[in-house]
C-alpha cells in the first residue's frame, strides 16, 4: 500500500482513498468484506503471525481486502477518532506487509499545505506584522514566545505543558513524564503551526536564543533520561504504540532525505516535514536539539547506537535520518529564514511520494530519460550493491538498478550472449 496514486480514471483498480474509519464502516456494511476482515484480525492475533498468514483462509482474506476500501485507506492528523483510524490502518497493514520494514508507509494523507501559508498567517496571528525576514536580527525564539503569550489559546496550552513538565514529583522523580508528554501532544495538536513552528524552528544568531529553542519542550522532563536506550530498541518501543508508530512513519515519509528533489525532501514540501517532525513530540521517540549551538542545527531522539550488536549500521542509519538529514535541516532553516521553496509547476497530477528505497539518481544523461519508445522496456544499470555471499552475510538486500535492452540469453551458460542474437 502506498500514498495516493495519480488521479484520473480508475486504472487497474485504483480508487481515491477514504479515511480508515469510513472504510471500516463501508466494509462492515458488506458481509463478504466484514467476514474477511474478521478473519484477518484473527490471523494477526495468532502467536506465530507468519505461520498464520500463510494459511489459505488468511491468504483469501488478504486477497479480498486488497480490493476493499480498507486496502488504501488513510488517516488525517488531528482528525476526530484519529487513534481509531490508525488502529484500523495498522490492523490491515500488519497483515499486508510481512514483517518489520526499516521504512513504513505513512498512514496519514500527504500534506498539501505549504510553509508560505504559515508565514502569512504567522504575521497575521501574532499581530506583529513582523515579516520573518525583518525580525531575523531580533531573537526570533523570544518573539515566538511573545506571539504565543499574546494569543489566549496558545498561551493557555503552553502554560499547561510547562507547569506539568516543570513540576518536580520527588527528589528522585524529576517529573511526571507521561502527563508531560500528553500536555505536549495537546499543545502541538491544538495550537496552529503558525505559533508552534515559530517556537520550535526559530532561527538563532546567538546561544541564548538557541538554548531557548532547545528548552521549548522542557527536555529535562520530556526528552532526557538517566540513560540512553539503544535507538532500535526505542524504535521497537515506539512501534508498539499505534500513534507513535504512525508519527514515526509519517516523519520518514515526509522528511527522509531524497537526492532526486530540489529541497532534499521527498515531495519538496517543507511544511509536511516540519509537521511530521513536530508530530513526534510527546512520544517515546521525542526528538530535540542536541545542543544550543545557534547555527549547527542537529536534532536527535534520546538514544544511542551502543548495544546494537550486528545491527549497528541499521541503528546508525536510523539515527542519521535525524542527525544528518538535509531535508529536515533545510526545512528548519527555511522556516527560520522565512523562505519556502517555490517550485516550477510540476506535473500536478503526479503527486506520488518518493519510493521507499533511496536510490541516488542514476547518472543518466537527462535527455535520455524522455526518449522512450513504446514496446521497449528499459532498465538502467545503476547500481549493484553488496553482491556478496548470501548465507554467511547479512546480505538482506542486493540492489540492482537496470537499463537493459530487450534481449534473450541461454540460461545456464556462463557466456554472455550479444544482444538480439537470439537463443
Amino acid at each position, binding site marked *: 500500500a502506498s500514498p495516493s496514486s495519480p488521479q484520473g480514471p480508475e486504472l487497474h483498480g485504483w480508487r481515491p482513498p477514504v479515511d480508515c474509519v469510513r472504510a471500516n464502516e463501508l466494509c462492515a456494511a458488506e458481509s463478504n468484506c466484514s467476514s474477511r476482515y474478521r478473519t484477518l484480525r484473527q490471523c494477526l492475533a495468532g502467536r506465530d503471525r507468519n505461520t498464520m498468514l500463510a494459511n489459505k483462509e488468511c491468504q483469501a482474506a488478504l486477497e479480498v481486502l486488497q480490493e476493499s476500501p480498507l486496502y488504501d485507506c488513510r488517516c488525517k492528523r488531528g482528525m476526530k477518532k484519529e487513534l481509531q483510524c490508525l488502529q484500523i490502518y495498522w490492523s490491515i497493514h500488519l497483515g499486508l506487509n510481512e514483517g518489520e520494514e526499516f521504512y513504513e508507509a505513512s498512514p496519514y494523507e500527504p500534506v498539501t499545505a505549504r510553509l508560505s501559508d504559515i508565514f502569512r498567517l504567522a504575521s497575521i496571528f501574532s499581530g506583529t506584522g513582523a515579516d520573518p525576514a525583518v525580525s531575523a536580527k531580533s531573537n526570533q525564539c523570544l518573539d515566538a514566545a511573545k506571539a504565543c503569550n499574546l494569543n489566549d489559546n496558545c498561551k493557555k496550552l503552553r502554560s499547561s505543558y510547562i507547569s506539568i513538565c516543570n513540576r518536580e514529583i*520527588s527528589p528522585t522523580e524529576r517529573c511526571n513524564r507521561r502527563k508531560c508528554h500528553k500536555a505536549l501532544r495537546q499543545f502541538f495538536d491544538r495550537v496552529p503551526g503558525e505559533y508552534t513552528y515559530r517556537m520550535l524552528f526559530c532561527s538563532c544568531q546567538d546561544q541564548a536564543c538557541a538554548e531557548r529553542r532547545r528548552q521549548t519542550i522542557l527536555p529535562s522532563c520530556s526528552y532526557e533520561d538517566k540513560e540512553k536506550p539503544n535507538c532500535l530498541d526505542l524504535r521497537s518501543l515506539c512501534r508498539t504504540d499505534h500513534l507513535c508508530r504512525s508519527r514515526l512513519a509519517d516523519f520518514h515519509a515526509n522528511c527522509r532525505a531524497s537526492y532526486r528533489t530540489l529541497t532534499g525532501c521527498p515531495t519538496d514540501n517543507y511544511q509536511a516535514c516540519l509537521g511530521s517532525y513536530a508530530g513526534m513530540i510527546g512520544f517515546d521517540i521525542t526528538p530535540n536539539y542536541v545542543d544550543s549551538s545557534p547555527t549547527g542545527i542537529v536534532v536527535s531522539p534520546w538514544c544511542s547506537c551502543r548495544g546494537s550488536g550486528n545491527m549497528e549500521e541499521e541503528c546508525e542509519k536510523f539515527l542519521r535520518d535525524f542527525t544528518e538529514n538535509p531535508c529536515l535541516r533545510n526545512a528548519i532553516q527555511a522556516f527560520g529564514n522565512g523562505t519556502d521553496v517555490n517550485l516550477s509547476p510540476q506535473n500536478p497530477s503526479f503527486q506520488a511520494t518518493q519510493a521507499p528505497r533511496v536510490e541516488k539518481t542514476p547518472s543518466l544523461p537527462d535527455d535520455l530519460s524522455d526518449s522512450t519508445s513504446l514496446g521497449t522496456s528499459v532498465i538502467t544499470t545503476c*547500481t549493484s550493491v553488496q553482491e556478496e555471499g548470501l548465507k554467511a552475510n547479512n546480505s538482506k538486500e*542486493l540492489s540492482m*538498478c537496470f537499463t537493459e535492452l530487450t534481449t534473450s540469453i541461454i540460461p545456464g551458460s556462463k557466456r554472455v550472449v550479444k544482444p538480439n542474437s537470439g537463443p
Partner: protein
Amino acid sequence: MPLLYVHALQDVPEEVPSFRLGQHLYGAYRTRLHENDWVRIQEDTGLLYLNRSLDHSSWEKLSIRNGGFPLLTVYLQVFLSPASLRESECQWPGCARVYFSIINASFPACGALKPRDLCFPEMGLSFRIRENRPPGTFHQFRLLPVQFLCPNVSAAYRLLGGESLPFRCAVDSLEVSTRWALDREKREKYELVATCTVRVGAREEEVMVPFPVTVYDEDDSAPSFLGGVDTTSAVVEFKRKEGTVVATLRVFDADVVPASGELLRRYTSTLLSGDAWALQTFRVEHSPNETLAQANGSFVRATVHDYRLVLNRSLPISESRAVQLAVLVNDSDFQGPGEGVILLHFNVSVLPVSLRLPSTYSFAASRRARRFAQIGKVCVENCQEFSGIHVQYKLQLSSANCSALGMVTSAEDTTGTLFVNDTEALQRPECAQLQYTVVAVERPTRRQAQAPLLVTLEGTYVAEEPGCPLSCAVSKRRPECEECGGLGSPTGRCEWRQGDGKGITRNFSTCSPSIKTCPDGHCDAVESRDANICPQDCLRGGSIIGGHEPGERRGIKAGFGICNCFPEEKKCFCEPEDSRGPLCDELCR
C-alpha cells in the same frame, strides 16, 4: 541478459549452495505486486538473468500498483535451499532480497556512460560478513549488464589494502574472497579501496571507490572475570535498607551479541547459596554496558556486565552472620567450545548494630522560649550513617512535676529533637532544672539505649506582647518581627533574616522563630507539628504569591525580596524590599 551473481559463503566447507527465486515481485513497503515472470536464477551458480523482456504495459501495471512513484523500485527474494523458508519468511541468512530500480528510459550509448558507472554500482559497495566462517567468494567486480551491453568496454579491478588483509581479488575472475575465517574480536571493520581501470576505445581512466567490510559478530566468546577478579567481600553494618548495593563484580564478554534488546533475557544470572536466609535477603541486579576493547592496535566493541549484590529486604540491627553467595552467570547464546558459564563469589559479613547513647545529655533553655522551640538533638552512635534502621526516641520524666519538654524523631537522619511542649512549667521558679531520661528504641527488635538528660532553664519569663501574631512568619518588616515572639522561638523573640537581595534567592529576607532551623529548605519533624512554626519551609497545598521557586513538595525554596506568610490562609507572599509602602495610596480610593 545476465544481471548479477548472488554469492553464498559456507558455514562448513562441505556445504553446496543451491539458489531458488521467490514467486513474486514486491514493491514499496513489501506489498506484493506481481508474479515474477521476468527474472530467473541459475540454481548452481547464483547467476540472476533476465529471461523475458519487461514491456511497457507490464512496467506501467507494476508502477501503478507500486504507488506510481517516478522510479519503479521492486525486489524479489532469493532463497538458499535446502532451508524450506516460505515466501513470507525471507529472513537473513537463508534468504536475501535483490532490488531492481527500473527506469522508463532507453539505455545510453556506452561511450556516454561515466567510467564510474561502467565500473561500480551507483549505490557503492558495502559488505557484512559473519566471523568464523570458512574462506570463500563474496563478490565479483564485473558489472554483467555493462559487460553484456558494452562489449567494447574493458575494466580491470584491484583491491588495495596490502597483503596482510584477509581479502583477495582474483585477477582473472575478478572474484573477491576471504582468505581465512574472519575474527570480529580482532577487527570488526575493514575500510578497503577498490580501483577500476576502464578502457573505452582509446580513453583509459582509473576510478576508486571505498570497499568497506563489516564483520558480523557471533557469540563465540565466553564470559570472563574483568581483571581476573571473581570474588569480593563486603560488610553490611549501618546501611541495612532494602535496595542497598552491597557489592559489585564485573564480567567481561568480548562479544556484542545478543544486542541490548535481547541481552538481559539471554544473559542470565542466578543467585546460589546453601543458606535459605541469604537467598531471601539478597538479590542480583545485572546491567550490561557496551565498551571498547583494544585489539591489534585498534578498538573493537565488547560488553562489560555489572552484577550488583543488593539487599532484598531491610535487615534488623540484631542480624549478625557471615554468608557466602555465588552468582551463576550464563551466556546462554555462547556456542562453545565449552560452557559460557562462570561463577562470581560474594563473601558478606552482616554485623549487628548496637544502640549506644552518650553518657549524659545536658542542654540550656530560656524561660522565654515559646512552644515548639527546639532545644537540642539526641542521636545514638553513628546515627548519621544509618539507613533502613528505625530508631524511635522517647523522653521519660525524672523530676516530678516540671514537665515542659517533648521529643520527636526525625526519620531522615534518625535523630531525636528535644523541644518545648508546654510553656507553663517554664514560668514556675521551682522548675530550674528539668531531669529526664532519653530512651532510644529500635523497631522491630525493641532493643534500647538510655541516657540521663538535664535541661537548665535560664532567664526570666516574660509574657507575650499583645497583638503579636502566632507565627513569626506573618511579620514582613524587621521592627515588627523582632518585637514579637512566635511559635518555635527559643528566645521568645522572632529573628529577622536579612536576605542578599539578589533576585529570587534561597537567602530571602524573612522573619523566623530561629534562623538556625528555619527557613533551611527542610520541614523538620518539629516544624511539621504546627503550620505556624515555619510556614516558609512547611507550607503545603497553599499558594506563594510573588517571585519564588517552590520547594520540592512544600515550602519556599527561593523567594524574591521579603517573604512573609499567613498560615491560617495557607498563603505566603514574596515581594521586593521597596514595595513595603502602603499597598494602596489615595489613587485607588
